[in-house]
């Protein structure tokens, strides 16, 4: 049965005071699925996850079960949970950690058992001091109650989960999984060249699976109610529900767990109570700052990954008018479900300023290993900012497009694409706004400042 708006899997304890302490959590049923999971064969859990159509919630939407099968046969893999949440406009993992850390830990126990993880790690963003404390307390409690650190009976013997919370120290790039692994190993967070993929050679040189917080928090329900059930909640190749973080110019911004079938229009008009002060919509960023923006006539598309990527209602991103951007192998780019961070912008929004602010972010966060990313993001930030500040020069629109096109596909990690794609998206959908800024007479908002 497809999910409806009352279906709550990962957000069921949001707003429930006390659910983040062990006694509160236990009274909400936490750890109830552990005996069932540990009574299953490891391979049967992986099979159930495959059947569930669970796809990664960290941004790329990769099928989780399939990823797990990339671990070489017969080898154990470290499980690492990505709690670095720093993609602009994304604020869901922090909610899970704050309200329901024991759900996450329960997911970690199930995942660790399925993968045979000798020691699992949750890599939490350094700035999240409150959440790190809540999570550490929850982990300590789970140790004290014997869910962690003690052998638990499992199919054919016992299994012990070791879990460590590892705090980052301020670097967006550490959300990228190979950078995260370097950071976890005590190094600078430089992304690694792939292959080898982490599933083959990851943490401490061993097979490793990196999954997002929301991804892992879905595991208890999948094992409890079955992969089939989870798949049927969803839509197409995407099982389950999805946390959508709505920010910007709506009446009720918030983090909502929604059916995959929900369209962007429904989210704005129903879920979030319409546009702030009754103003008109100008654009929506559907899935975090790294995905292309869409226009008001493109919002009748569900937030599901394949719909946002393929729906013909969304015009393809172009490198220049009439010429589609090629993601590689002729694949066109429309938009993406990304990390679920949806930004709603009304008619008063200065799209050039928003774009410039984002480009400044990427320039700041580039680790500098690859020339196209290091130089390109810096240029994009400078050119977009001068346009935003009313100092645009003739040809700047074209210049931004060609720099972005030069970054895309030419870098070690996807941060380069994450900067290039939204840039091209803004230029495709709001080209006139940019071209108007080539004329220095346009007086712009004083923001952003660089």
């Amino acid at each position, binding site marked *: 049965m497809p999910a409806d708006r009352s279906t709550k899997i990962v957000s069921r304890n949001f707003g429930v005071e006390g659910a983040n302490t062990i006694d509160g959590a236990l009274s909400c049923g936490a750890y109830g699925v552990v005996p069932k999971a540990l009574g299953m064969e490891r391979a049967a859990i992986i099979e159930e996850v495959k059947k569930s159509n669970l796809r990664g919630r960290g941004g790329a939407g990769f099928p989780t079960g399939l990823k797990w099968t990339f671990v070489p046969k017969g080898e154990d893999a470290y499980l690492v949970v990505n709690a670095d949440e720093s*993609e602009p406009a994304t*604020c869901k993992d922090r909610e899970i950690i704050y309200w329901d850390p024991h759900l996450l830990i329960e997911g970690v126990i199930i995942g660790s058992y399925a993968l045979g993880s000798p020691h699992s790690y949750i890599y939490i963003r350094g700035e999240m001091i*409150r959440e790190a404390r809540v999570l550490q307390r929850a982990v300590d409690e789970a140790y004290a109650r014997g869910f962690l650190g003690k052998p638990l009976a499992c199919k054919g013997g016992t299994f012990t989960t070791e879990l460590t919370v590892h705090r980052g120290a301020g670097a*967006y790039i550490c959300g990228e999984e190979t950078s995260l692994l370097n950071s976890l190993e005590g*190094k600078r967070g430089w992304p690694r060249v792939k292959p080898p993929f982490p599933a083959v050679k990851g943490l401490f040189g061993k097979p490793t699976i990196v999954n997002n917080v929301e991804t892992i928090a879905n595991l208890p329900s999948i094992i409890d109610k079955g992969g089939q059930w989870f798949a049927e909640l969803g839509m197409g190749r995407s099982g389950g529900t999805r946390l959508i973080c709505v920010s910007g110019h709506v009446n009720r911004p918030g983090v909502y767990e929604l059916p995959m079938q929900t369209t962007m229009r429904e989210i704005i008009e129903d879920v979030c109570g319409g546009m702030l002060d009754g103003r008109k919509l100008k654009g929506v960023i559907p899935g975090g700052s790294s995905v292309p923006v869409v226009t008001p006539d493109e919002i009748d598309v569900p937030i599901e990954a394949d719909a946002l990527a393929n729906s013909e209602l969304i015009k393809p991103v172009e490198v220049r008018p009439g010429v589609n951007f090629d993601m590689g192998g002729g694949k066109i780019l429309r938009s993406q479900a990304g990390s679920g961070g949806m*930004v709603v*912008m009304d008619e008063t929004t200065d799209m050039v300023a928003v774009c410039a602010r984002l480009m400044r972010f990427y320039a700041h*966060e580039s680790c500098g290993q690859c020339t196209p990313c290091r130089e390109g993001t810096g240029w994009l930030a400078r050119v977009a900012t001068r346009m935003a500040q009313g100092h645009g020069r003739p040809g700047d629109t074209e210049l931004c497009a060609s720099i972005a096109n030069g970054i895309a596909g030419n870098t070690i990690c996807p941060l380069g694409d994450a900067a290039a794609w939204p840039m091209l998206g803004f230029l495709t959908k709001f080209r006139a706004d940019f071209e108007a800024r080539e004329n220095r007479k346009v007086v712009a908002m004083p*923001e952003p400042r660089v």
Partner: protein
Amino acid sequence: MALSFSDEAMQKIAAARSRYPNAQAACLPVLHIAQAEFGYLPDEVIELVSNTLELPVAHVHGVVTFYTMFRRRRQPVGENLLMVCTNISCMLRGGYRVLDRISQKLGIQVDETTPDKKFTLIEEECLAACADAPAVICGPRYFLRLDTDEKVDRMLQELATHPEPEY
């Protein structure tokens, strides 16, 4: 006299070290402990960390300079490190206005500390509180939906008078 860690810090370091298969992996946790102990990470502290974990000084130095939360500056920051988000979700709901208001009330610019060492102001990237924009965090405390000057003023007042709550 050479710098050394307190006994309490040494215990925390030993506990952190035991969570990883090698000493290098304990580098970030130990640097966090060191920063909590000394307030910032000048050369002497980097040396101390490198001796404690038996890692090359150059490695520890490279790590410290990579991450923005590790502070090399000699001047320790104010009691309250105000991180103001100006990324897009906050910008759309007035993040820059929050920054300006704080700056005006405290009489300091971004990256400066008040003379009484109570506040340091920094501009931050997304703090994962976008749905409650505009957002400021200060240690473990969140100040959300700061959409009026009064709310900003109240936040400063609260921080100046109330010590950090326990979590």
